[in-house]
């Protein structure tokens, strides 16, 4: 693309809005097909162009952080599933690691491997929903169903691993809730052989589609600087060209030993940090997850899955901020213990979706209504994670 045409494409469309000068207020949400849950935008549009946008969240606020203060530490584990139900084990892991760090609990080696299997499988599932819902919001229904079909297979695998399909509640302090046999590992390997083919096919089906590319390239550009300023994390931050992955820069579990790349948005179709980059980063990240899973399969060994943990867990007084790489970015648990009671004094959950939401009001400005959908879908936001 020549620089002149690129400049033309990148020019904001706001200028045109001054023709009529009248704007109408439309309510996108809380019940709208493309807000992925109960999120609401108040859009002030002039024709098709958004002049001003006010994101409104909180429709799914369950005050999980308040609930946590009234129950023992271990009782809160199922609630973490509900923070991000698409990548539940990721949320389990962040919470368990924070508590284990505070209480100095040991985790057996096999339990960590199993945790990593669960987390990476769940990350693939979550990204499948993300890249599946993106074409759905652009009007193509079929890719969504294909992505969900693969997710179903993985749910079957997770059912063997954890006993449930969603909201797994798999991880315990100092271990995991149940072990698996070698049969499962073989099935997982067999599935990964298939998944590589599927991923390649899916990307060929969607990522090379001219309309899909045109709808996403140069839409909702978030530069690296902007992304840092909006506290983007996870795939959204990496799509903006900043290769920060907490599994690399602040390794937990056995991610130190894993060999994997951190995919970064390169702007292959448009500008770095546009919506297409966010799509392609997720696709590449799924391939990386597959690599990690194979390495885990080659390294996992027999052993205990649960260490000794006191039934009534009272953590020493103090606080911890522990963050892990969830499917939607940095998942941080800020936990304060008063050292006396068996329940946390305060838990603050920092989620990737909430941080991604902070960019909406500014990025939406000057977009067309259809681009609003495309940008929002490319962020892959899960509403309960925003509201908690």
């Amino acid at each position, binding site marked *: 693309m020549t620089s002149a045409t690129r400049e033309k494409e990148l020019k904001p469309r706001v200028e045109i809005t001054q023709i009529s000068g009248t704007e109408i207020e439309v309510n996108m949400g809380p019940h709208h097909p493309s807000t992925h849950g109960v999120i609401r935008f108040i859009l002030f549009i002039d024709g098709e162009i958004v002049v001003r946008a006010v994101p409104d969240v909180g429709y799914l606020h369950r005050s999980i952080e308040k609930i946590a203060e009234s*129950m023992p530490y271990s*009782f809160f584990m199922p609630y973490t599933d509900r923070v991000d139900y698409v990548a539940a084990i990721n949320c389990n892991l962040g919470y368990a690691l924070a508590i284990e760090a505070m209480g100095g609990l040991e985790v057996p080696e096999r339990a960590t491997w199993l945790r990593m299997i669960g987390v990476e499988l769940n990350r693939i599932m979550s990204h499948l929903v993300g890249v599946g819902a993106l074409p759905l919001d652009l009007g193509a229904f079929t890719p969504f169903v294909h992505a969900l079909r693969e997710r179903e297979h993985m749910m079957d695998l997770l059912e063997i691993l954890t006993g449930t399909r969603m909201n797994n509640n798999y991880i315990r302090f100092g271990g995991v809730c149940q072990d698996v046999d070698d049969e499962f590992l073989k099935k997982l390997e067999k599935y990964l052989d298939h998944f590589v083919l599927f991923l390649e096919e899916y990307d060929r089906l969607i990522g090379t589609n001219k309309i899909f590319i045109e709808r996403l390239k140069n839409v909702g550009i978030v530069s690296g600087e902007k992304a840092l*300023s909006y506290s983007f994390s996870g795939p959204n931050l990496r799509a903006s060209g900043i290769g920060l992955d907490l599994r690399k820069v602040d390794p937990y579990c056995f991610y130190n030993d894993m060999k994997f790349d951190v995919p970064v948005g390169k702007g292959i179709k448009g500008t770095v940090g546009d919506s297409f980059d966010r799509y392609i980063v997720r696709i590449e990240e799924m391939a990386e997850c597959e690599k990690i899973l194979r390495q885990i399969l080659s390294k996992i060994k027999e052993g205990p899955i649960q260490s000794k943990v006191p039934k009534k867990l009272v953590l020493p007084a*103090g606080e911890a901020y522990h963050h892990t790489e969830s499917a939607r970015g940095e998942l941080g648990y800020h936990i304060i213990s008063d050292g006396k009671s068996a329940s946390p004094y305060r838990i*603050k959950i*920092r989620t990737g979706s909430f941080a991604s939401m*902070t960019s909406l009001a500014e990025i939406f400005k000057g977009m067309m209504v259809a681009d609003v959908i495309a940008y929002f879908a490319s962020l892959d936001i899960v509403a309960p994670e925003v509201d908690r």
Partner: protein
Amino acid sequence: MNFPAAHLEKLAKLVDSVYNGAVSSEIVQADTKIPVLKINSRDIRKVVELVVHHKDLGFTYLNTISGTHLAETREDESLDLKGFEMFYVFSNSQDFSSLAIKTTLPENNPEIDTIDDFSGSANWFEREIFDLLGVNFKNSQDLRRIMLPPDWEGHPLRKDFKEGSHYNGIPTTRSSELEAIRIE
């Protein structure tokens, strides 16, 4: 990421040299794994400006802002006052090493300067704290409730929060009381 010890010393020196002892700051390598910079609440903007804009530090990435209501005296002597504790987590955009800034606010009329001009996301984090804890951020560009409806009364994450029996005519409690589960 564990904050390198060399960095820590440099940070302590910096804070001292820039503010010449005016800021009541101390650096604690707490059990949070990340260093905590304890400061006086009225210096928040100065310190944030330092850690964000100083060329040796460059903590431009705001991870989160957390807040806690400390209602009763606790065993740990560092947490012994009543009031609100603000907890800012910043990260370096290069190596993602983190730094926490901690400050305390009085229990009645908690107020602190906003830092929403340092980060695009700070406003939302502050709004959440304002909504759930009732901490007032001075000079904020847009301080509204975020999670709860605008006509909600009270701030639920305060320890002394009592839920009203009705909200807009809708009862907030069930008729048959569910027994609270406790492990003793």
